[in-house]
């Protein structure tokens, strides 16, 4: 299944299958193509509240698919500055464009450098999901 799975070169990845993109001083977070493909029909997304603080590796939201309920973990610590409210009415965007319109939230990171170094690059993440098969 990892064959054909999209793992963009310019992102960082967590072991919980979130991706991270640094944009200016903020970090955009979503779930990976591998994650959305494993979950299949995503029917519901619950995101952290704007203004709330999140801790790295802790649960901060929920993705529901037809067959399963999965927690979203924040890959980094910081404050939630924006969430993708389009996902409330169109959770299928996560299936359709996991790295684009299906993004989930933006964090103003509090410990960016140290925590980024714990995330995987595209090559390492590709190996990680291949070994999980």
């Amino acid at each position: 299944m990892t064959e054909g799975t999209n793992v963009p070169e310019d992102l960082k990845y967590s072991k919980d299958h979130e991706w991270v993109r640094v944009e200016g001083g903020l970090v955009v977070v979503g779930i990976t193509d591998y994650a959305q493909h494993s979950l299949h029909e995503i029917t519901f997304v619950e995101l952290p509240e704007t203004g709330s603080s999140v801790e790295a590796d802790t649960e901060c939201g929920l993705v529901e698919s037809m067959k399963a309920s999965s927690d979203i973990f924040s890959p980094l610590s910081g404050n939630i500055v924006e969430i993708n409210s389009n996902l409330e009415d169109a959770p299928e965007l996560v299936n359709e464009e996991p790295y684009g319109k299906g993004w989930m939230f933006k964090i103003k990171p509090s410990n960016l450098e140290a925590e980024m170094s714990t995330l995987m690059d595209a090559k390492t993440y590709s190996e990680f999901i291949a070994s999980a098969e």
Partner: protein
Amino acid sequence: MNAPFKRTQLYDWHKKHGDIVPFSGWEMPVRYTDIREEHMAVRKGVGIFDTSHMSRFFTKGPQALEFLQTMTSNNVRKLEVNGGHYTTCLNEHGGIHDDLMLYRIDEHEYIWVTNAANGPKISDHLKKHSGEFDVKVEDRTNEITMIAVQGPKAMALLSTIAGRDLAEFNRFTCNLVNLSGNRVYVCRTGYTGEDGAELLLLDTPCSDEGKRRAIAFWKLLLEQGQKFGAKPCGLGARDSTRLEAGLVLYGNDIDEQTSPIEARIPYAVKFKVDPHYIGYDKLKRQKEEGVTKTRIGFVMIDRGVPRDAYPILLKGESIGRVSSGMMSPLLRNGIGLAYVKPGVVEEDDTIEVDIKGRLRKARVTKWPFYDPEKYGSARSQ
């Protein structure tokens, strides 16, 4: 525990076209494309399911009726030849040992069709009790392919193949029909809430020839079904359609610790029966003295998707638990079945579902969850 998984006659087709998952000892397709699309095909056109994993026991003999009445809670005497009904098999405490469809195919012959997971247990149960009666019980699960054809256009599809109007058979009948050279029991029943049939395709054992015949018939249904909007459907859509219809699933909504009275399936329970079935006295007492839990349906008011075992609360007090829940593809809202203390809530009351520590409001409602004027077998044509 590590016994090899069983495969239906249609497995090779499923493997090529769908996602296979383990289910009750079988390798079955959970989806072919998208569970929601398959679900909507059932509600608007036709959904075609392989249900060959279900167990099929043939019971034959002069005392078949008496034997089956001892085993099941509906009134077997009311079952006419070529009729079928939904019923339960109880344990001595009145808990549900199994829920099943019982079809009478001849004066002294019946087919018991049941949950895959319960097959071995029911096989033992029937063997254990049949000795006292002049009957023969035969497990013919592996000789027959079973296919459910469900949806508002299901009977039109089957009539096209039969070259005659099969909708003339009433709901809850079971007739032997020639379908494209195959001997098929057309049972006008299902597990989706929709009109349609469950087909028992005879003479299709798990041999190369049997598989070839079964797959040819399956393909015929799909080809002829194109103009009726037919789609092959996996276990995902089977679960979602049954839940939207408010139909119970063994292991989730009913089990050995739950009676049909608690499950609110009164049509499966009769008390004017002779002889009395196992569990009769316990059930009668429940009916007279009341039960300690009762099944309700609910639809989410707040956003959220209920799942099995989530706590149900009323004004902060725990009153029960979810037994089945999901996002309804039709309503695009969370729906569920739950067991709660009897008498504490009624229709339209607001309850709370504890979704991972967050209390979300829901409204108590009756089933089916869809508008029966627009969907389901009783819809206006």
